[in-house]
């Protein structure tokens, strides 16, 4: 057996309070980084859940549209033109808009809700529970309510499940319209919308009665099975004038994510949060390792005097950095998993731990502690074995 004494660990463990401070620093920054990344990714994912539920291969939007919350409408006849192509199975218009929803419970509380209007002849969307309820939307002023909407809209989902009749008003620029909730579906909130309603395009236009006829927000194109989507979008781009933008489904998703990532402060703010978390970690770990070295210079000098090489001392400090990283990461991960649950309940954002993110943060923690260790070892030069006699 060739097992040497774990000098680095024995020294680190000797001062329990200091070790705990170092670990709390790492835990703190691990949790901060996890939260920032978790919420950021949840934002990006939730902002495209709508897109992911769309049952089309190819989409038209106005070139002036920047994201779901800022759509410009465009003429519906642009969507009819692609019907000239053999590959097209069907096309379907989608109407989008924000209106005010009156909380049926408190009555004087109004809040913006996102309304999706679809053409019932096709099944352009596939959110959970939508298909079985579609028929009900043929009746005027009936809507489906997103059960994952924020609670400020009222206890709609639970009331509905108890069989209560839910009637309220939806307001748009001064004109209010009575609507009845006839079913629930699942889409979920995103940074842009706190709650969602789904209805037929006819009902949509009843609510938004000031909208110009013949203008839509998204044009959905379903292609026949086996069609090369890429080739088709290229051909369609040449065919249609430049007043519409043509995208594959994946491009449409990236388009939305990209808006939040680069055209808003949100991406920047989250990256800043991550950077701050890492800086706090580096500073705390550096501070701890540095004091550890400078207070124990005579111990290091003794080790040198009895014949240990400088590299041995270096590896002691770096090993300590490694222990701090691993011992801080593990509780940090556990706390984060609990925090994610709370955040999910509080924000209804799909904040979940993924193995890629867990690994990424683990390596970031290692790098962070290693960097602090590399900075702290400079102090080791002051460990002079001649000083101890």
């Amino acid at each position, binding site marked *: 057996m060739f*097992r040497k*004494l774990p000098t680095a660990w024995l020294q680190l463990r000797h001062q329990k309070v200091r070790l705990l401070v170092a670990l709390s620093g790492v835990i703190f920054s691990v949790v901060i980084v996890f939260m920032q990344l978790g919420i950021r990714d949840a934002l990006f994912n939730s902002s495209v859940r709508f897109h992911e539920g769309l049952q089309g291969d190819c989409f038209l939007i106005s070139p002036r549209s920047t994201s779901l919350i800022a759509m410009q409408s465009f003429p519906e006849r642009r969507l009819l033109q692609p019907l000239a192509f053999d590959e097209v199975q069907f096309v379907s218009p989608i109407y989008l808009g924000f209106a005010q929803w009156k909380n049926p419970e408190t009555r004087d509380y109004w809040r913006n809700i996102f309304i999706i209007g679809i053409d019932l002849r096709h099944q352009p969307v596939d959110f959970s529970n939508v298909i079985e309820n579609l028929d009900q939307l043929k009746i005027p002023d009936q809507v489906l309510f997103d059960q994952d909407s924020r609670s400020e809209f009222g206890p709609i989902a639970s009331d509905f499940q108890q069989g209560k009749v839910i009637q309220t008003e939806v307001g748009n620029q001064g004109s209010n319209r009575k609507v009845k909730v006839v079913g629930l579906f699942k889409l979920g909130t995103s940074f842009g919308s706190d709650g969602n309603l789904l209805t037929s395009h006819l009902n949509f236009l009843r609510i938004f009665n000031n909208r110009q006829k013949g203008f839509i927000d998204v044009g959905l194109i379903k292609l026949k099975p086996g069609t090369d989507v890429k080739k088709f979008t290229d051909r369609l781009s040449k065919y249609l004038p430049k007043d519409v933008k043509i995208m594959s489904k994946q491009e449409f998703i990236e388009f939305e994510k990209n808006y939040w990532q680069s055209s808003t402060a949100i991406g920047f703010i989250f990256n800043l949060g991550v950077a701050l978390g890492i800086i706090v970690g580096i500073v705390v770990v550096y501070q701890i390792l540095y004091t550890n070295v400078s207070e124990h210079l005579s111990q290091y000098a003794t*080790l040198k*005097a*009895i*014949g*240990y*090489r*400088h590299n041995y001392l270096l590896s002691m400090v770096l090993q300590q950095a490694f222990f701090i990283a691993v011992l801080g990461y593990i509780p940090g991960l556990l706390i984060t998993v609990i925090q994610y649950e709370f955040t999910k309940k509080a924000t209804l954002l799909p904040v979940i731990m993924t193995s890629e993110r867990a690994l990424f943060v683990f390596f970031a923690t290692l790098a962070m502690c290693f960097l602090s260790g590399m900075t702290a070892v400079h102090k080791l030069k002051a460990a002079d074995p001649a000083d101890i*006699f």
Partner: protein
Amino acid sequence: MESVISIRSLNHYFGKDPLKKQVLFDINLDVHAGEIIILTGPSGSGKTTLLSLIGGLRSVQEGRLRSMEYELHRANEEKLVQVRRHIGYIFQAHNLLPFMTVQQNVQMSIELHQNFCLKEARKKSEAILTEVGLGERIHYYPNNLSGGQKQRVAIARALVNHPKLVLADEPTAALDSKSGRDVVNLMQRLAKEQGCTILLVTHDNRILDIADRIIHMEDGQLR
């Protein structure tokens, strides 16, 4: 007789040019295997400086200094490390590692040598600690021991590898006369058993009797 230490025309300076100050002047000394030599002299005369040069803790600037088989003038760091590994040091402050038990402190010395094996290292450290009278306390931490006991651990750590040369700088200064006496007796006994050479710096006149030879140093020169 073979000499363990051989010093010729050794000079040593501290500080840089205009403040450069010479502290060792033309030192010549031969120490033979198995000798116990005591080095005395007033404070500031350069005893510690000489000891640290012999022990490879400082680089030799001028003159020749051979410590065992190592020529130390212009020696690189790696050579100094090798010298240090072949010397047993006993410091005035015991310099034990407070985060390790007494046995682990001794083991740190054993681990420096190749072909070490954990089981053997444990046995060896236990044996030497028993010899210095601490067999019952091998799992104590240094802070729970008296000054004399700590110094005995330091002796155990210095001698466990059977070094050819032991350097001790005022090992009894921090001890009362009884434990001081015990400590030097112990050093003398173990050194004779192992046949090692001891160079000991002290101000303590009561322990001069263990010496084979006494050297006096004054103002950086040997008398």
